[in-house]
């Protein structure tokens, strides 16, 4: 078999395995700890290099070390939303059960990252800009993203019937994705106190390597943490949604027998 069709076959099979809640649960039991360990190691290395080894900024001194939590949180706030919108669209188009679970379980995580980005940005803004908050494009659009996350969560829990809830939540999530490019380009389209792109800038990152390496490690650490937390939340939701099915009852009964 040629490599292209082999890859396609693998993706196709993985998609169908992940589409079944039971298969997803089984796979997640193995992937969850892997993501957890990777997140832990990456964050530990990133924190060590970022707090101890990176030199202080020549203008901002040590306050620039906030970047190592602020930028990953802000990056994740957008990445998680794109994930939610993509999963929601897959759920709506192909009626894939698990896609809705991924979407709704990601929402509280995305909201947390957005809140962290806003709060750490505010704490960073006070000494450097001289203000905790300003209604400029980047900050305002990021705040709207936080409310959008709240909206997605609230829509899901507003309906008694799960299928209605999933569809309503997914539609809002897909429409709301328009906020992502607005946030990303806000620093270019409107004048802003917020600085422009530093890492994904044209012509490469505008940072020396000893400052950039910990940032990259922290971004990947946050990404794996998101995966880890998402697997935990999705497993919980699958257990709850499928509690009447035979396999969940057997899984729980095995637990009784082994713990008592």
């Amino acid at each position, binding site marked *: 078999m040629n490599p292209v069709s082999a890859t396609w076959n693998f993706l196709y099979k993985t998609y169908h395995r992940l589409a079944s809640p039971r298969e997803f649960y089984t796979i997640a039991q193995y992937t969850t700890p892997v993501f*957890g360990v990777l997140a832990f190691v990456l964050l530990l290395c990133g*924190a060590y290099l970022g*707090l*101890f080894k990176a030199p*202080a900024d020549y203008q901002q*001194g*040590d*306050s620039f*070390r*906030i970047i*190592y*939590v*602020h930028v990953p*949180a802000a990056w994740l706030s957008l990445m998680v939303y794109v994930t939610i919108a993509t999963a929601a669209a897959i759920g709506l188009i192909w009626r894939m059960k698990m896609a809705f679970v991924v979407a709704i379980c990601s929402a509280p*995580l995305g909201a*947390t990252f957005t809140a*962290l980005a806003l*709060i*750490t940005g505010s*704490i*960073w803004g*006070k*000494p450097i800009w001289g203000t905790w908050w300003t209604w400029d494009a980047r900050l305002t659009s990021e705040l709207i993203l936080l409310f959008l996350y709240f909206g997605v969560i609230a829509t899901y829990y507003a309906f008694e019937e799960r299928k209605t809830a999933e569809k309503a939540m997914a539609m809002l999530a897909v429409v709301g994705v328009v906020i992502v490019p607005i946030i990303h380009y806000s620093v270019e389209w409107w004048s802003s106190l917020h600085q422009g792109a530093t890492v994904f800038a044209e012509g490469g990152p505008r940072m020396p390597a000893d400052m950039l390496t910990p940032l990259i490690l922290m971004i990947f650490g946050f990404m794996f*943490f998101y995966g*880890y*937390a998402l697997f*935990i*939340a999705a*497993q*919980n939701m699958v*257990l*709850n949604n499928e*509690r009447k099915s035979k396999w*969940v*009852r057997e899984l*729980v*009964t095995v*637990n*009784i027998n082994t713990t008592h």
Partner: protein
Amino acid sequence: MMNWGEFFNMGGYAFHVWTSWGLSLASMITIVILGRRKNAKIKAQLANQIRREAKINSDNQEQ
């Protein structure tokens, strides 16, 4: 040998740096703890329900 007092002082930005890092760490730990607790809770509730159902079934058979 590094100076720990100087390290924690963060060049005068101790409050800003440690609050930001602390909040991030606290959120991550909270998310994981809540998720694991919920998992244990769901499993315990289901196990209880299954036990109750088994008891009702055996009581019915005795009558």
